[in-house]
């Protein structure tokens, strides 16, 4: 037996043991929950896009919890997760939002499609037992139920009506929160507003508003309702009614104040920038900016993201303009599909009311899809990319060593 072959044989069990160590699933000691646990869309049209956010939760977040995502059933090719196929829930975090994105193919046949998204968890520290034993890990399941129809369906309900204080001379800042369950953009037919004095007895102004924004299909959002007024500084009551055709869908009596010019600040905060840490070439990456309107008045805002590779700006992507009510937090999303492998840097800010927030940045590692698939087949992609790289490195080193030893042996002989 040659020296080379002896060393090669010694290396094989070592690699084998290492692989087994890394492939062994671990225990999870805390509970696990998902809320809500279903995504039911009864009115999907062909080619439509649907997003829904879920909260993974655990009461005892003592350690990092790793997740592997599997799509199942008839909807498996249509659904993706904003966190990718593998992600982790950090230690100390009880609640962890994840967003399911569904893209319905344009050539999908009408009908009902059911499936699921399974989130298998594991921890770094497996449970221990003397002798033979099975550790327990937990999984969360999001059940999907999509019905595709060829019809256009307008279906929505109004959840609430609100009004903020306004500065003198500015329009009144009313807003409507609408849940759109149909497959076309939705908004009330009209909004009727009546303004009363502070004793809610004397009608001062009255008007109908028909021009307003809308909420995208399968989502809940705020619609800003600007109401022109000549009211002076003081306290007032507003009776705001939202109509669908000639029927009142919701009506609320609300108190508000007209304050001196300059009293209401417009401020905002980009709280978080979230996107998948790894992706394959051509895969659509969702860049999600969690933006909070920290001011006292409503305004519109959009996420602006610059994509860099090797310190070179390669693309600029933006979210749609969204109405953000004072005190509320809104997810602003832009999308990007990388065309080459490598490490990308995303630098983003939110533009609002002529201002912009400080920039936040994050990195995305884009891999060749073939390499990603081969790593996945060994269970080595995602949250263990360095382990995979380490093993590949070891293999390369062993091959080089084998070649060197073979050359030396050849020279000796």
């Amino acid at each position, binding site marked *: 037996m040659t020296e080379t072959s002896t060393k090669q044989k010694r290396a094989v069990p070592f690699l084998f043991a290492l692989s087994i160590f890394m492939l062994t699933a671990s225990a999870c000691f805390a509970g*696990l929950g998902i809320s809500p646990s279903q995504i039911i869309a009864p009115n999907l049209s062909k080619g439509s896009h649907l997003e829904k956010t879920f909260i993974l939760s655990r*009461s005892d977040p003592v350690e990092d919890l790793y997740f592997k995502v599997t799509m199942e059933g008839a909807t498996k090719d249509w659904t993706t997760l904003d966190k990718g196929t593998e992600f982790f829930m950090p230690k100390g975090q*009880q609640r962890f939002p994840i967003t399911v994105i569904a893209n319905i193919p344009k050539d999908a046949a009408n009908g009902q499609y059911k499936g699921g998204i399974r989130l298998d968890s594991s921890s770094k520290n497996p449970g221990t037992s*003397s002798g*033979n034993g099975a550790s327990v890990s937990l999984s969360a*399941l999001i059940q999907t139920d999509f019905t595709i129809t060829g019809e256009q369906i307008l279906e929505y309900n109004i959840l609430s009506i609100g009004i903020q204080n306004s500065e003198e001379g500015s329009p009144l800042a009313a807003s409507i929160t609408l849940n759109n369950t149909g497959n076309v953009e939705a908004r009330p037919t009209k909004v009727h507003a009546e303004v009363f004095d502070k004793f809610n007895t004397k009608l001062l102004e009255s008007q109908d508003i028909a021009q307003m924004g809308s909420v995208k299909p399968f989502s809940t959002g705020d619609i800003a309702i600007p109401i022109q007024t000549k009211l002076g500084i003081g306290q007032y009551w507003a009776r705001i009614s939202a109509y669908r055709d000639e029927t009142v869908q919701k009506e609320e*009596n609300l108190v508000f104040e007209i304050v001196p010019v300059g009293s209401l600040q417009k401020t905002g905060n980009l709280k978080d920038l979230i996107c998948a840490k790894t992706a394959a070439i051509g895969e659509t990456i969702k860049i999600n900016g969690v933006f909070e309107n920290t001011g006292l008045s409503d305004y519109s805002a959009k996420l602006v993201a610059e994509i860099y590779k090797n310190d070179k700006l390669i693309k600029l992507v933006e979210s749609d303009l969204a109405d953000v009510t004072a005190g509320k937090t809104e997810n602003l999303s832009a999308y990007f599909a990388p065309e080459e492998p490598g490490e990308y840097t995303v630098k983003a800010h939110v533009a609002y009311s002529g201002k912009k927030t400080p920039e936040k940045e994050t990195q995305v590692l884009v891999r060749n899809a073939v390499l990603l698939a081969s790593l996945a087949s060994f269970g080595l992609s995602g949250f263990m990319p360095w382990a995979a790289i380490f093993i590949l490195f070891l293999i390369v080193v062993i091959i080089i060593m084998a070649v060197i030893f073979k050359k030396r042996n050849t020279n000796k002989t």
Partner: protein
Amino acid sequence: MAITIKEITMIGLALLFILPGGPVFANDLPVSSNVDIVPAAIDLTEATVTHVAVTATVTDTDGCADITGATAKLFRTDLTSDCVAPNPNNCLAPVAMTLVACSDTIATYAGDIEVQYYADPGTWSLHVIPSDVSGSGTAGDDDTAVINTLTALNATSLIAYGELALGGVTPDTTAYDTIVTNTGNQTTIGVQVKSGNETAMVCTTGTIPVGNEKYDAVSTAPYASKTALTVSPVTVAGVSVPKGASGNTATIGWGLQMPAHGVGGSCSGTVVFTAI
């Protein structure tokens, strides 16, 4: 004579002040409005409480200094009985709100309501009753929010089979039970199980096939009649775990047969539990 008129006038004025309904001391009761629950869709947290922020405006035409407080109650909208006695499943009341600001006739109140993980899913209403020195005022329009279904579970962390001889089978006892707890608000959960790997266990030498590990809702069911574990998730027959603060557990009994040969040392594997 002049003195007499003055006395009558004083008596008349005194009556005007004293008699009920007199115009000088008429008190308007406060009214709540702008009632708001944040967020409008509530996702509960597994096995613990979730804090829900509530706000309201209280208006009193006598001035906001006249307002003495505001009380909130958050209840399942379709509750048939009035939400008076607190019940963590469907009626969270009364919750005293805190004064945040007071200006002219308007006061702003805020509160924090703890919602248990097993609170009923569905539409809930927030009702705010203001009060002043004369008593309770008028509640304005309720706000509503949806409590989403939280599907959650916890399971005891290990199934310890101990030592087994080659070809040996675990006895049909409760020693290998897993206790499953419904830690969410889904009325009842079912449980799916699967192996975490292609085999049931990896041993120092060899592996144990996945089908050698078996389970049943009845711990003492004979090993032969228990259901073999699979790599794909399968719903455990006969297991339905109700929600609640107590009585929210179920048992799944396990068994293992060691292969007759080819296996040695200690063995370990993983079983994955899913609430459905």
